[in-house]
């Protein structure tokens, strides 16, 4: 690429930078506001005067979280869940997508399997039948209920399958000539060139599992088994709704203690940190493993 030095390119660059930076700020400022709120005093937050800097700096909200044993119990349940789900998801996605990426000539019943998968993706059993199945499998209140029902994310399978289909045939043929077995082809050829796609589905899996609160809400009967987002959700009650529905004074008082925007902001910050930490690690896979240049037509 040729870099121009004329005035017009400079202005153009300036405008582009300006747009990109302001878009970045638009994304960043609300998050920063949450961080500022979490470090402000409760009354300043209630008075709506916190902007981008904390007012009456206070770490009380974080202290309250630190003391909350259930918060940490739930936090670790979520960590376990993400680790388990990520491992299971990746294994099952790859093992499923690889055969399905073959043509009908190579894998005769491919279309039957494909139809079953797509059917299952479009139609589900509904809440209560699913609940009864899970209950009869004795999965209620175990960590597996958070992991197993979503162990094969169909959408990701199709994504990876399509990625595999796009891998040049010549790569596989070369491996076959070298005497590689199908498993070796999968692990030595397909997976290394598919890292960007795998990183994407891994990210889906991590974010999806970390942020999901519904599963925990339905299948966990004890609060001590709640994953973090379910726990945070259970603490996040709209006090205005409670006031409307006529809740007792003691209950309101109790809720007002844990239910203020200050504390909620701190919970959001703490529960977002793990995801923020994971992004940089996955990011490097987004640029490597590109197929470009591996085959010369």
């Amino acid at each position, binding site marked *: 690429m040729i870099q121009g030095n004329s005035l017009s390119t400079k202005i153009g660059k300036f405008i582009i930078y300006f747009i990109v930076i302001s878009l970045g700020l638009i994304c960043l400022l609300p998050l920063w506001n949450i961080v500022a709120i979490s470090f402000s*005093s409760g009354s300043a937050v209630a008075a709506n005067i916190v902007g981008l800097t904390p007012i009456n700096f206070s770490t009380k909200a974080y202290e309250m979280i630190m003391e909350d044993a259930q918060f940490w119990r739930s936090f670790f349940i979520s960590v*376990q869940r993400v680790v388990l789900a990520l491992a299971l998801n990746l294994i099952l996605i790859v093992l499923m997508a690889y055969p399905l990426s073959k043509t009908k000539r190579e894998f005769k019943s491919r279309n039957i399997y494909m139809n079953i998968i797509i059917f299952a993706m479009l139609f589900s059993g509904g809440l209560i039948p699913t609940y009864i199945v899970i209950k009869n499998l004795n999965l209620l*209140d175990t960590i597996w209920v958070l992991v197993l029902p979503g162990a094969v994310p169909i959408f990701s399978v199709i994504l990876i399958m399509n990625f595999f289909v796009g891998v040049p045939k010549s790569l596989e043929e070369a491996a076959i000539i070298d005497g590689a077995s199908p498993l070796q082809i999968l692990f030595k050829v397909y997976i290394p060139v598919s890292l960007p796609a795998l990183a994407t589905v891994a990210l889906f899996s991590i974010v999806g599992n970390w942020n999901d609160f519904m599963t925990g809400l339905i299948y966990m009967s004890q609060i001590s088994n709640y994953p973090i987002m379910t726990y945070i959700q259970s603490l996040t009650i709209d006090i205005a709704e409670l006031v409307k529905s006529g809740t007792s*004074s003691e209950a309101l008082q109790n809720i007002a203690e844990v239910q203020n925007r200050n504390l909620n902001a701190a919970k959001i910050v703490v529960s977002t940190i793990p995801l923020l930490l994971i992004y940089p690690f996955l990011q490097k896979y987004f640029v490597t493993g590109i197929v470009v240049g591996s085959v010369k037509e």
Partner: protein
Amino acid sequence: MKTDSIKRIKLLLVLLLLTSALAACVQKSSNGGETTTEDGKIIVNIGRSVGSNPKLPEGDTFEDNAYTRAAEEELDIEIRNAFEADGEDYSRQVALAISSGDLPDMMIVDREELKDLVDNDLIEDLSDVFEENASDYIKETYASYDNRPLEDATFEDNLMALPGTESLAAPQMVWIREDWLEELDLTIDEEGDRLITLDELEEVAEAFMENDPGDSGNPVGIPFDSYLNGADYGGVFTMNSIAAVFDGQPKKYLIEEDGSVTYGSTSEGTKQGLEVMNEWFDKGIIDPQFGTRSFDDIMSLLTNGQTGIATGPWHIPDWGFSTVREMDNDARFAAYVLADDDGNVNVFEQNTTGRFMVVREGYEHPEKAVQMLNLFYDVMLNKEEADMENKFPEVAEYLEQGVDDSTKPFNIVLLPNQKYLDDYQDIQAVLNEEMTVGEITDSQVRQNINGIIEYMETPEDALTNGWSNYHSRIVGWSLMNKLTEEARFNWVETAYVNNTPTMEQKGANLIKLEEEDFIKIVTGVEPIDYFDTFVDKWKNQGGKEMLDEIEEELAEQE
């Protein structure tokens, strides 16, 4: 090459092993089929409706805490939680339990769920066990409501559930910043009877807006929430009290003298109330952003001193005003009530029935439910401090630490009708040194009173907690007490029935219609005569059928 793939398979296995090892950390609740434990205790599986802020001490859980241990000890039972959940999540768990056909032995349900359970014969008739086991005090408690809660739980002469109660909470008050009144040298209640008129309230709002005693630079008169009317006395930033001046009782079903049922929101009194609101809105006394300001935003108006007027129940200082005092240490509120021209306060009869405790059909020990009721709402409630420490030391400690009531395995509220007034008399007796703190039987009041005394002695240094309790329990309750003693209340008879078919179908839309049309009238988008159009729309869109259905149901109950 080959070793590599073996390595990978090994890695897979290791990962799987690791994951199962990790998974073993989450405990599993036990709910086998047995009904007694090895040492002969009766097992009670309870569906627990819990609070989100239990404040349990380290190591205690909803399943195993001072209350459950006390009940297990006293009643020779073992409490197990079939499920624990909060608010809406609890309703979902109840629905799942009903639809999967696996009911816990006992659980708390609301009116709708109770009716469903009765219709499907899923719960036990408690008439006999209640009669035999309930203590006299419990029966008296229900009697203080003319047994209305029990009637609500009775189907075809059978008591199908143990009902909770809602103590008297009337009226809706008007809270005004007292320190601002003094600063501006305003006297609004010259007679000192704590009754104010609409004109007086208007005067205060105008003065607050003109002088901006909160130094906010942007004062707002009276804030209202967009839902405008609450269905009970708990509503905050509502116009219920303004409509009540004209004997309008919005969002209530009223029983007329001839026995017919009307809807309060369509009454002449509500129209007059809206007219006043519209006038105030034109004058700028009502928050010009009314309708778009959220509850949190209104709270912030109070906190940063933009407004000093709020309508609502006696208990707002407990959970709402505390941030006001944190921002401004000198902040004080006075409570008034809006009265009609004759000095009467028009109030509607509130729903006296809370939630219901039901026992699964076929459970062998329904009497344990009643015995638990006795334990928590008679024995533990009526103990002086010393007795409590003696008999239930762990529970006494809980009360001191303010552990949430939802840790009780049996969390329906069952308190006498005049509970708050009785508590107020107790507090007065202590302040007048006719009684010691230890003699107060209600533990909550015992906890509150020290903070109140501290606030009364040194208002500047007292903790916000004491400030809050002083305002709700002295300022708020004294107003309720005074109005009751002087018989100022003019009670309006109301109907409380289960959701009728039309209500289920069209109720939500009608409420939406009402709230939107009322906002239009207040803000002047539509003239006040539009109210009549609203009434027609309301009747035609299902309101008429709803009223008929309520009349029918009331006739059935007779």
